């Protein structure tokens, strides 16, 4: 039988799913053991037991100076920045995507402009953002928004333009205005694509968030990682990285669920 026709059974598929995770953990544990056998004071690959201890300490022990648990404070700050930045970008992407996708006038005026703007590397303009908006929250949120909005606009305008012209014509024969077509025909069909596009842009959004926090911040997941780097606190860094990964995965999963819940018709098509 050809390999393309071989499908694993359920238990075997589950085993294959878990396998790389287990392998990674085993390789890490072996590496950690080997390094500490050579040098008991090694800080680069702390043993798994120490990682668990550190994680437990981070999520429960308040900071001596402020009395706050920094882990949760960092999480809340980062998530707030991410939510505002991505929310703003999604709104802009949706509005301009619909405009460019539906109106030939907007397409003529904005399409090439957005295509060029989207080529500007966002990190290269981070210094400008710090100069213009200062080192506060605004410049971090602005970096996320500026970083992913062009992609969202381009993706959503393309999806809008791809709507079958038959539907747009049909709506006109039913007497719909341009606004009615945008709101009742295009918008609902673009929303699942918006969620999909946001899922794709969450990766870059995290990148921009962590970069901005690493450079100028007083809290946040990215700030903490770059702060403890000075003390070579690998256990803290790895805990934060695992936590960010988990958040990102859960966010992605929730968005996928949400899309299926809200737009059952998109599944049927």
């Amino acid at each position: 039988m050809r390999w393309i026709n071989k499908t694993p059974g359920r238990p075997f598929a589950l085993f294959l799913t878990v396998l790389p995770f287990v392998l990674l953990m085993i390789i890490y544990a072996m590496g950690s053991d080997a390094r500490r056998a050579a040098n008991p004071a090694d800080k680069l690959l702390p043993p798994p037991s120490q990682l668990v201890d550190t994680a437990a300490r981070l999520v429960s022990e308040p900071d001596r100076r402020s009395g706050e648990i920094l882990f949760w404070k960092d999480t809340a700050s980062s998530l707030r920045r991410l939510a505002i930045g991505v929310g703003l970008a999604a709104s802009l992407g949706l509005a301009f995507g619909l405009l460019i996708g539906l109106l030939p006038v907007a397409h003529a005026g904005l399409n090439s402009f957005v295509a060029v703007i989207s080529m500007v590397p966002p990190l290269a303009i981070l210094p400008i953002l710090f100069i213009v908006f200062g080192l506060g929250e605004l410049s971090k949120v602005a970096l996320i928004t500026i970083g992913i909005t062009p992609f969202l606009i381009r993706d959503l305008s393309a999806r809008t333009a791809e709507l079958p012209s038959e539907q747009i014509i049909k709506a006109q024969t039913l007497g719909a205005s341009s606004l009615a077509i945008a709101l009742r025909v295009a918008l609902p069909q673009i929303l699942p694509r918006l969620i999909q596009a946001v899922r794709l842009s969450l990766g870059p959004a995290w990148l921009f968030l962590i970069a901005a926090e690493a450079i100028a911040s007083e809290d946040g997941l990215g700030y903490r990682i770059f702060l403890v780097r000075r003390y070579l606190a690998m256990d803290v860094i790895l805990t934060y990285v695992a936590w960010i990964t988990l958040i990102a995965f859960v966010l992605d999963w929730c968005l996928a669920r949400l899309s299926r819940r809200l737009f059952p018709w998109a599944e049927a098509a």
Partner: protein
Amino acid sequence: MGFVTVEHVSQKYGKRPILDNVSLEVAEGAFISIVGASGCGKSTFLRLLLDQERPTRGEIRVDGIPLQGEPNRSRGIVFQRYSTFPHMTVRDNLVAAEGLGANLLGILPRARRQSARARANAALERIGLAHVADQYPATLSGGMQQRLAIAQALAAKPRILLLDEPFGALDPGTRERMHDFLQDLRAETNMTVFMVTHDLSEAFKLGDRVLAFDKVRWDPQFPDAYGATITYDFDARDGGIPYQILKEDTYVLDPAGS
């Protein structure tokens, strides 16, 4: 004078002529079938009638008034596919036929919503889709989707209905039932219908007239050099039996000719 008047209409895309000097008079309430080779410009002709495109030359008038430059509620259309809104349930597709044009936002005022739903339910009952009212169009069979598309177009009460190969993707049995459905609907309204089809028997069965589009001039070196026009205009009433034969039959049955 005709209800729909097409006068010396030509359509070119770039340099390429598609339609060449098409003229036509159609009486109100007539059912016009349009046949012709694929790619000869039948859909283009419907787009011109719909006012989705303007002809490069000539003029189309409905009830004496030239077309205004964009589709509106007076002319409905059903395509072979994609004619319904996939994100609305079957019932909402019919409600939208009233709601989309109700105001600038395309949202039916609360006061009218109840009655629009009732009308949609009644229409679904009639076209045999009541049991799937809350499903999405993609879950329906091809025949059901086309019934919905036709009902949706009719809910706007257009004076002219344009059908572009509406039954092209259906199996023969479903097609027969769609013919009955369409003929029933026609009996109730005085709509003028233009239907493009690839099926000659369908064209003659449903149509009062059958128009054949074809190229009059043909250059084997440059197949695209000339556009198509109406080459035949058959009288297709009485199932397409030519008038003379009918007269002979009558004569045989009734030699006195009374």
